[in-house]
């Protein structure tokens, strides 16, 4: 038993080392973001309605105030139902800005149905409900309190909304990182992906505008949108293919080929839109970036699907084995019959296609094609791959490690915003964390050798 233990630890550290870093970061940010939050969900509305009747008696006239959001609508309907079943009366309901609340109060004054209580989620509270301000609307309102559900202490980082937020924010990086992992496992590099994001986004937007012709681009059909997006992704795939051919046939280093492509693609993106972001696209264009399926954003599901596919490809397909073989030892792979050039061209094409897809996801989120987007994304993607445990020397790497690497980057970026790390410090912390994560990876390697 005791003899087995070290081997187990080794295996554990090998496979899940980066998960520990991710969990540590999550725990750290959770601790740092523990704050009093004010609930706006249905059960809080129910409890508040009961409390209002208990404190002010049955038949109490209530002004219900919420913000103009989906949560606000839910709060209002649950509160009203519960209050009326308990014998309270909603004399007025306002959903929207503080100015709307003021107008509702003034309307109630005119109708001579003054509320005795104003109730709503804490977020709907405003200076309108302060005693001095209420007194100005009508002297009898001065004593009317604004009641809201009590605060709950909970880490903001760990709220469902925020965790989905992190997942949504890393989709583009994570998708492209699949292709980049394959490229880096073959001991290559692709610096063009950031520009390909912009090229894909801009050419899709430009194609939709072109297809609309004299009509309004916002009214084009779904077929045109899908066609434009498909063409943009294919264009990026062709550019990836071109990089692959350049570096295999002419033996130009991948670094230089993709550096050149990075500049060319950025220039093409600017040309496609004339330098400005192209907006006013149809609503169907923004589905990918804004639609939910069963509570999960569509783009996150797409990411999960692609990772499952990539996992199978890398671990169970011939191409996957070839990719590792080419990166491990190119000559040995060639001598044992691996079609080295075809494998290399394939990985750069896949990387280009995924960069194109990433660009479509980003354009869909922004509802526009912006030639300035995707700058420095190649570095974030490479960082995600390396933090995920893939060796820049080639031959080694795990596709799921890359997903963890992307999450680490997403968690750090999101966590720093939530904890109010100042803009300058964000760069320092971000760089430091990448260094530390890679340092851990090195320690892991030593652990394996020991």
């Amino acid at each position: 038993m005791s003899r087995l233990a070290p081997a187990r630890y080794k295996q554990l550290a090998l496979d899940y080392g980066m998960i520990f870093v991710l969990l540590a970061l999550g725990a750290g940010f959770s601790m740092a973001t523990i704050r009093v939050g004010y609930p706006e969900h249905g059960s809080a509305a129910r409890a508040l309605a009961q409390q209002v009747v208990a404190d002010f008696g049955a038949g109490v006239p209530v002004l219900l105030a919420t913000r103009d959001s989906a949560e606000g609508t839910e709060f209002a309907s649950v509160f009203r139902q519960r209050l009326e079943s308990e014998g309270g009366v909603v004399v007025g309901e306002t959903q929207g800005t503080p100015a709307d609340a003021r107008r509702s109060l003034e309307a109630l004054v005119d109708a001579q149905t003054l509320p005795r209580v104003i109730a709503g989620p804490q977020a709907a509270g405003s200076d309108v409900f302060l005693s001095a301000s209420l007194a100005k609307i009508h002297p009898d309102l001065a004593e009317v309190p604004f009641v809201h559900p009590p605060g709950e202490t909970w880490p903001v980082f760990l709220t469902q909304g925020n965790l989905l937020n992190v997942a949504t924010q890393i989709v583009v990086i994570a998708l492209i990182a699949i292709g980049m992992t394959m490229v880096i496992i073959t001991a290559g590099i692709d610096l063009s992906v950031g520009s390909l994001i912009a090229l894909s986004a801009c050419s899709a937007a430009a194609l939709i505008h072109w297809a609309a012709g004299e009509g309004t681009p916002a009214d084009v059909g779904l077929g045109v949108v899908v066609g434009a997006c498909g063409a943009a992704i294919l264009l990026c795939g062709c550019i990836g293919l071109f990089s692959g051919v350049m570096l295999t046939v002419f033996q130009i280093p991948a670094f230089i080929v993709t550096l050149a492509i990075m500049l060319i693609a950025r220039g093409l993106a600017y040309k496609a839109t004339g330098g400005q972001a192209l907006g006013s696209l149809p609503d169907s264009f923004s589905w990918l970036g804004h639609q939910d399926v069963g509570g999960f954003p569509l783009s996150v599901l797409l990411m999960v699907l692609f990772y499952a596919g990539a996992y199978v490809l890398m671990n169970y397909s011939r191409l996957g084995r070839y990719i590792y073989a080419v990166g491990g030892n190119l000559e040995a792979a060639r001598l044992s019959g691996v079609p080295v050039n075809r494998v290399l061209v394939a990985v750069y094409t896949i990387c280009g296609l995924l960069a194109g897809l990433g660009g479509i996801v980003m354009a869909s989120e922004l509802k526009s094609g912006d030639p300035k987007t995707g700058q420095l994304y190649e570095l974030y993607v490479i960082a995600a791959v390396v933090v995920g445990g893939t060796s820049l020397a080639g031959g080694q790497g795990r596709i799921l490690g890359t997903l963890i690497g992307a999450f680490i980057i997403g968690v750090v970026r999101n966590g720093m915003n939530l904890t109010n790390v100042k803009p300058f410090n964000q760069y320092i912390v971000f760089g430091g964390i990448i260094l530390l994560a890679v340092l851990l990876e090195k320690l892991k390697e030593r652990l394996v050798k020991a």
Partner: protein
Amino acid sequence: MNRFLCGLASALLIVGVVGCGSGETERVGEGDGNTAPAKVIGYSKMNSNNPFFEVIAENIKAAAIAHNYEVRTVSADADVTKQMDQIRDFVVSKVDAIVLNPADSEAIGAAIEEANAAGIPVFTCDLECTAEGVKIAGHIATDNYQGGRLAGEAMIEALGEGGGEIAILTHDPAASCVKRVAGFDDVINAYNEGRASGKITVVKRLPCDGQRDPGFKATQDIITAHPNLAGLFAINDPGALGALAALEKAGKSEQVKIIGFDGQPDGKQAIKEGKIYADPIQFPDRMGKEIVEMITQYFAGEAFEPVRLIPAELYRQADGQADPSLQ
């Protein structure tokens, strides 16, 4: 031993992150049960390298203290996807209002729609959002067209009766800078109308990205092609200072009169020293203060004008000499 190192490194990670996070918040106070607790304003500024936005940020903070607001400032570094992520982070942490300088007038629309859907009011400042279907609670900016007209008048004044060839350093991705050039062009065209001699001709327009280095290079190219250049209008101070450096290097800083825009400290200093002829100056301090004023009016449910334009004022050498803030 190695496991110990792993543990140590993880612990350092956590301490580092938590340590950097704490103490950065300008929380002013917590309200009691009846009065509303301190409101939180999230501000996503354009970038960290233009002092203009730093002045806005500082004035938002200073004005916010008086109203018991907490301000959280982040920088978009001119990257619209980064700004979108920041807005989403503001939405999940339930700030009460969002202020931003849109990193892209069109593409930021989708992020603002998300804040709209959460019922959080969005205020824009300096740059506007032109996307369709978004709700902007309030907007404050310089009257850039009027400022551009002032720049044109200053150019006419600087060149005198002789007129001559001039160039413009543009930055078309920013709608504000396009308006400045439009105002400038209108004044110059009106001046040239019906004039037989002493016309002012725009011989070259090059982009300067609103930054020093591209402004420097563009100006070098312009004076190579047009050695008789008499004047140059740059749409902001960093661009004008880049142009100045190029003209000094070529020994033409006496020959070419520069008109800038903004009135940043470096720009004002150059005006005082006679290196830049004049600037239509903006008032980022007023933008910061007045946007907080607008937010206060919003929370109080008062009616206010949703778009407020602050007129630019011309700043010449005499103003620089009388300016106590300069050396």
